[in-house]
């Protein structure tokens, strides 16, 4: 698993084939609605393709709504920090990221003082 070796996901053909298998599974699952008789309890639930369509449309709406929320909710990364961390000097506020993660077994999680 070294960087030079071609990994499975580095090859675009592999990804294309995986996606093809995935599309076939999706199509089969959709088709199953017309074959399998499901017991249903909810009025729309019995419609063929209810679950696939709900899942797909729901997720697309979710993502577009979230993208739209960014327009008024997103602030720079230091939005709170620059106010709240005025008492701390700059390398403190970086916390974990400032600590090196060189090839030692120690490092990032806070303490690690020898006890």
């Amino acid at each position: 698993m070294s960087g030079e070796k071609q990994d499975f996901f580095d090859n675009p053909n592999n990804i294309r084939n995986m996606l093809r298998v995935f599309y076939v599974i999706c199509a089969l699952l959709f088709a199953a609605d017309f074959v399998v008789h499901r017991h249903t309890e909810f009025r729309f639930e019995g419609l063929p393709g209810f679950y696939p369509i709900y899942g797909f449309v729901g997720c697309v709406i979710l993502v577009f709504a979230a993208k739209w929320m960014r327009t008024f909710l997103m602030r720079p990364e230091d939005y709170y920090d620059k106010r709240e961390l005025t008492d701390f000097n700059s390398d403190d506020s970086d916390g974990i990221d400032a600590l090196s993660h060189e090839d030692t077994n120690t490092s990032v999680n806070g303490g690690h003082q020898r006890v």
Partner: protein
Amino acid sequence: MFEVAPFIPFFIAAALGLFLRGWMRAVLFIAVPVVGLANLWLLGTGGAGIEFGHYAILDFNLLLFKADKLSLLFGYLFHIAALISVIYALHVRDTLQQVASMLYAGSALGAVFAGDLLTLFIFWELLALTSVFLVWARRSGRAYVAGLRYFTLHILSGLLLLGGIIFYGQTHGTLEFDQIGLDGNVLDNPASWMIFLAFGIKCAFPFFHNWLTDAYPESTPTGTVFLSAFTTKVAVYALARAYPGTELLVYIGATMACFPIFYAVIENDLRRVLAYSLINQLGFMVVGIGIGTSLAINGAVAHAFNDVIFKGLLFMSMGAVLHVTGKINGSELGGLYKKMPKTTVLCIIGAASISAFPLFSGFVSKSMVMSAAIKNGYDWVWLILLFASAGVFHHAGIKIPYFAFFAHDAKLPAREPPVNMLIAMSIAAALCLIIGVYPQALYSLLPYDISYTPYDVTHVLTQLQLLFFSALAFVWLNLRHLYPPELPSVNLDVEWIYRRLVPDALRGLFNRLFALDNRLRSAAVGGVARLVEGVANHHRADGIMARNWLTGSMVAGVVLLLGIYLVLGWL
């Protein structure tokens, strides 16, 4: 029989942990949850309605340990969670963190077996007091201020609980912790509303949820794993005990299941994504408690059980990423599957479980809540939960593994995490699969005896359809470059009110007060100075008061006065 309340071994181990070091502490900390679990198992099989540890404060009879199937399930869960988390944290050489985590796990156990409200209150506060050290243990500025906010909100929850207990004790004459219910409005029944709100804050109800998304991602890689297991699940237990069948909870839960997924999609810090998804999962549990039928309650607590394990697994895998790379933002990660293949697989098992894939643990418990919702006529709630299920797959099931381990290769130096971390994650992953494949093991521990079969054609097919087409949406959006990229950013949430609006308003108010005060002072000082100046003006050389007067003009003045007297006398 020799009876030991489950929290006692944890507290003793924490005290010993202050003095023990190295492998001795490791052995002790692993042994405590294992022995504790055996102890609890023996207590649990001793028959229904086990209780011991009566004591009295003032006129109230209090009870340290009282168990039924509901509390026993949470008791088993907390022992398992403690064991996994302790193994995960074995490499940490930080006495503060290790002792605090033991005390924290013990407090959670004390709270779920509390027989009365006052005992519950004590452990409720201990939970806050011990867990905040796990946040502070990161020893960064952000962790410090986030910990302070976390602590403030939890103390507020504790004070509300205490206030509620006082009212409750006055009206009911007993402090036994049992069903309270939410009858009447706030004024008629302040006790139950105050206790409800106290539980709600700990359960991250909307508007009170930001302590979770604020503090958990700021904790250490190991601390977050502990934190994710206990606090919110104690609150779920308390709600299930005191407020089952409260309809308001259905709507609160549906909100909790729904709104965090939007934040999770645009959040960059992957542990914060998991924190939002934790609220989303709590939503399912709260809905179940609100519906209150035996199926719904069973579903809620079964989901709490599974959530601790799969959410713990996800937090552990992200903790491992943070531990070896020092980074946790989606915008900085990617391509780690090459260097961390084991962690990748374990993370995907957690992701599949939280997404409720058939044969993984989430499926067997989430479907119970969903079935209960539809059986009891909550059609809209059911639709919202279905949307939330698709959404959770989208952000926790796909986004977490994709942006951490796949996506574009960030070429970070990385390797597999320490072996103890891998072991802990493997235990959690194994539990996810075992419960998913053999759900009867979990079902037999549930509070109500019901027959429920998650694996039938309809359930499996519809769930697979939902998930595969959610994934299809992700693929489509990604190929079309419509998926929002990970951006280094902060997203405003309710916390903005107390982190920005109120401090800014107060700062503005105080600035204006100081300015006013300043003006008044300088005006006063200026007035005094002018007075002194004026007086001095008249008294210094050439001043009117310091002048020499001629004798003649004085005599003339006296004559003038006498003249005026004379004139007045004649009138």
